[in-house]
């Protein structure tokens, strides 16, 4: 079944690629287009991953490839929907994408252009931007990842954020990726490039939302380069409809003395697969990876992370937690690589899961590969049910069983959010997560 569907999908993509190339006009011979064409060839060689691939053992893409999609085009966004977005009250640089296309109508940049460049990739392409040519596909290679190759092949629009040397961006950047699935089932492939030069600092919050009754499939790729002594807080909230699916590939390259804090929160989705990879290129970097997944009925949420320690004196700390209810499935695979030269590495990893029902499934796999001999590393994974003693304690004070469970789950999840230092963002996330947990 799934092979047939994947073949249909391949035929569909081949036809779309031909059409796509025929419309590029002057860009056909541009360097970016060479990358596109090579990437598409590579995609065809690799093919969509199946459950026979070790990295996709528990996650069957077949079920989303099996559907009919339209290649996304610029679409509409109802004002009401936009006005009710999360974090609407936070003063921020607002960037809005609808089905992967930049919306000039809804985007507002409040910080000075000298401290931050926020660009639509479509516009940069038209301008034959050096910045885009120099950085596109430099940090997220497509050679071993079919979906990244596919995203690269179809590059049309997306976001490039450039924070110049020494710039401390005052307000957060909130990027709304909104899926319109009201008129058709869209196949969306956004690209994000984040570039922080030396000593730069910025906070980026990505929020994925959706509306409409059709299924959707987003295949997004983010490539990040964090310069020496720069600091990036990069938070993702995946808050689409239960019938939306998403494959997210994010690769972050860190230079010397840089700090990156990431948080990936997935509240629901039919199939959500996050691949988050860190390459620590130089010494003394700091990396926090936090994640929270709330997996409910008919939902599969998969997080694959990699921290590749190649240089000495780097620190990484990972905490992913999940609450899995109904017949939900969660996958966590956390790989930490400590290469031969990466002495004095400190690498910690923890994954905790609570199962709310007998049908809920978690597959968790911490994977430490250590080739250096003077390091401190630890990992641990736990999966359990709600603490009955704690539940009884709350109930014995008059708190009903459902409210008591929700309180305990909220407390369990809250630890992941502690690392957020922006109180407004934290409060917004807590509110959203608390409401969602109550429905699991």
């Amino acid at each position: 079944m799934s092979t047939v569907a994947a073949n249909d999908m391949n035929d569909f993509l081949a036809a779309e690629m031909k059409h796509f190339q025929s419309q590029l006009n002057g860009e056909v011979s541009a360097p970016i287009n060479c990358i596109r064409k090579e990437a598409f060839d590579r995609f065809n060689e690799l093919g969509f991953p199946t459950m026979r691939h070790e990295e996709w053992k528990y996650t069957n893409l077949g079920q989303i490839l099996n559907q009919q999609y339209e290649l996304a085009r610029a679409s509409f966004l109802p004002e009401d929907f936009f006005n009710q977005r999360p974090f609407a009250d936070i003063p921020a640089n607002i960037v809005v994408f609808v089905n992967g296309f930049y919306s000039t109508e809804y985007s507002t940049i409040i910080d000075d252009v000298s401290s931050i460049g926020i660009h639509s990739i479509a516009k940069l392409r038209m301008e034959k931007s050096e910045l885009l040519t120099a950085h596109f596909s430099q940090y997220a290679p497509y050679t071993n990842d079919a979906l990244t190759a596919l995203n690269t092949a179809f590059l049309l629009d997306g976001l490039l954020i450039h924070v110049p040397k020494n710039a401390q961006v005052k307000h957060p950047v909130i990027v709304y990726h909104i899926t319109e699935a009201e008129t058709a089932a869209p196949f969306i492939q956004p690209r994000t490039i984040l570039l922080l030069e030396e000593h730069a600092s910025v906070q980026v919050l990505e929020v994925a939302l959706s509306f409409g009754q059709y299924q959707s499939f987003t295949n997004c790729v983010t490539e990040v380069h964090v310069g020496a002594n720069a600091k990036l807080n990069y938070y993702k909230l995946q808050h689409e409809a239960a019938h939306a699916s998403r494959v997210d590939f994010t690769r972050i390259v860190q230079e010397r003395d840089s700090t990156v804090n990431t948080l990936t929160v997935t509240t629901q989705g039919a199939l959500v697969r996050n691949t988050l990879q860190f390459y620590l290129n130089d010494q003394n970097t700091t990396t926090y990876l936090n994640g929270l997944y709330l997996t409910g009925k008919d939902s599969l949420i998969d997080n694959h992370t990699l921290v590749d320690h190649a240089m000495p004196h780097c620190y990484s700390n990972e905490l992913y937690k999940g609450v899995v209810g109904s017949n939900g499935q969660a996958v966590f695979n956390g790989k930490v690589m400590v290469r031969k030269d990466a002495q004095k590495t400190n690498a910690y990893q923890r994954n905790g899961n609570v199962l709310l029902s007998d049908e809920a499934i978690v597959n968790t796999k911490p994977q430490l590969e250590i080739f250096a001999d003077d390091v401190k590393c630890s990992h641990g994974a736990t999966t359990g049910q709600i603490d009955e003693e704690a539940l009884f304690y709350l109930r014995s004070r008059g708190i009903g069983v459902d409210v008591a469970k929700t309180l305990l789950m909220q407390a369990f999840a809250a630890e992941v959010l502690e690392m957020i230092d922006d109180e407004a963002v934290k409060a917004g996330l807590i509110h959203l997560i608390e409401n969602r947990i109550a429905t699991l």
Partner: protein
Amino acid sequence: MLSIKNLKAGIEEKEILKGINLEIKAGEVHAIMGPNGSGKSTLSSVLAGRAEYEVSGGEVILNGKNLLEMAPEERAREGVFMAFQYPVEIPGVSTTNFIKTAVNEVRKYRGQEALGAVEFLNLMKAKMKQVEIDQTLLSRSLNEGFSGGEKKRNEIFQMAMLEPKLAILDETDSGLDIDALRLVANGVNALRNKDNATIVITHYQRLLDYIVPDFVHVLYQGRIVKSGGKELAMELEAKGYDWIKEEVKEAETA
């Protein structure tokens, strides 16, 4: 207020309570004492509604209602409060938020409106003063990293906030030094009135110097084998439990 008749209960098919009879009226304080393994903890667990204990006979009526048919939260809303021997640490749940949720759930059950932020704060301040507990404890996660004494004082504070009709103090004195014990006892005494009743379950007589009972019952082998006034506690302190055990033995062989 509370009427326990021929209560039999156990855990995993082992019968521990073998027919408890006890009548408690509003305004009274009853102490239940007994050697280890006599069934004291089982009695408090059954009254509070722990699921792992199975009731095999008898009844417990609180103000005309069958307590044994109620879920733990319903019992609490009906006015039962158990101060835990080992209060549970719950990281991530703020003490204040927890108590507010509890108070408002109980109020909802009683047909009262939920307390707003200001009213709740005022109530909390008044009760904090009454039971001498510090604000800093309440701003932390529930019982997390609390000392033994702090945990027990937090129990008494919760009791003050929930204003139960029947309070059960389950070995509240265990592990407390004399200062902590005095603070806890002061709190309990401050909350006593003619409309509520208290059951003090304890292994030691010491607590009863501070919370003076109207009645003392000795629990042994799952039965109340002796009842008396507060002087019975003194006698137990002086002579230990052996003479009680002897009496029971004699009665059985006779």
